[in-house]
């Protein structure tokens, strides 16, 4: 209910939803990399699968030779041969 109010308010005030609702933002750079903003931490890390926690769900990046090239408390850049990016809540 609170989330719905927040969303409506953000739309009325024309604020970016990802900022106002604290949602993750994912940018896919072809098959070379994925930028995940506003993440909640690493859940699983192996060369062919990286699972990252986001808000109420998780993002799974599958591929080959996956590496986390940069990471801080908010952003994470995954590089390698990306095959799929899946979000589950």
């Amino acid at each position, binding site marked *: 209910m609170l989330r719905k109010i927040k969303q409506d308010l953000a739309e009325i005030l024309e604020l970016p939803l990802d900022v106002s609702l604290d949602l993750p933002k994912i940018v896919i750079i072809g098959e070379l990399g994925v930028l995940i903003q506003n993440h909640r*931490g*690493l*859940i*699983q*890390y*192996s*060369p062919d699968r990286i699972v990252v926690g986001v808000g109420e769900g998780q993002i799974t990046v599958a591929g080959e030779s*996956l*590496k*986390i*090239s*940069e*990471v*801080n*408390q908010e952003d994470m850049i995954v590089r390698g041969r990306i095959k799929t990016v899946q979000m589950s809540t």
Partner: protein
Amino acid sequence: MSLTKATHWLKGYVLVEVSGKNPERLVNLCLISGFPVWGFSADGRSVFFYTTLPKYRTIHKLARKSRCIPRIRRRFGFPFIMSRVKRRPLFLLMAAFMFAGLIYMAGATWAIQVKGNETVSETDILRTAAAAGLIPGARKSALSPAAIEAALLKEHPELTWAYVHFQGTLAVIEVVEKTRPPTELPGDVVAARDGVVTSVLVLSGTPVVTPGQTVKAGDVLIAGQPGDARTGARGTVVALTCYEVYRETDLYDQVAVRTGRKAEAKILRYAATEIMFAGKHNEFEWYEVEDYPEFSLFKGTDKELTVLTRVFYETEWVPRKVTQEEAIEVAKQEAMEAIERKLPSSVKLVDLSYETLIVQEGVIGIRLVLSVEEDIGRIRPWPESKDLNGG
């Protein structure tokens, strides 16, 4: 190297392998604690990352919380180099000794090069330089280039200039030798070519010809005074002379015509180096080339980087009939070039005429005649003056 990398190197950094049930938890704890961590990789069992040495020292607290085992796999940076050096004091001493030795050796002259000498031998120059202190092994600070230059000029009067300088451990002696004007032997002034004399200027001797007189090559123009009161003739005798040249040219020639076939190559050009990165090499026997630049960086400098398309157009030779006027023009041009090569630079053109001849079917000839004014006087030494000078 960026500033961050340089800072990490100065502080020291390590490659950490984290193994255990949940290595990702340790990564998250590191991120929350604000640890500088980078360069993550995994092999399925463990997670690897880099962190700075000061932060690694506090990582064990987090490792206990996440129930993981962190291990250092590799060490990088200044603190590790220093610890290795501290363990080997002799190594540090040797390095300091080698460095001091290098500095000392660089202050000496180890080779000497002589440039510009032709008649004065290198050995003589080196001997003089050695007497002034310039020998292999001599300290540069103890040498005075000005004193060596003065000694060289004093010892070798054939030298007009000497310059001593150092290029690292190489001493370079540059010299310039004196050049004397050629000595003219006394004799008569004679004609070098046939011609009609237009003016005579006598500096010494007796004029034998007058303006308007026709002379042949070898005739005496100004006579000197042989015998006891020997005075060689000197002067200028200007005469009207003729130069003639004959050229033939065909009334048929061949012109290159493009067939329509072409090959393209993409080329990267940097300074004088070209690399073909796409397209085809030229395969035509006869062709014309045109370059079409597409992109250029640092234009006008010697490090210009250009991407260009080079097009090779195939050509074939097609016979073409030349008009008589064109053929005459070509032959005239060739004849002029040939005659200009024969003419001395000091001549003055008086008249130019040409004659056209049809040699045979399809061939035309041009005879070009130039009348010029030039100094035809040349000194012919007397036989006895040659003998006197050992000639």
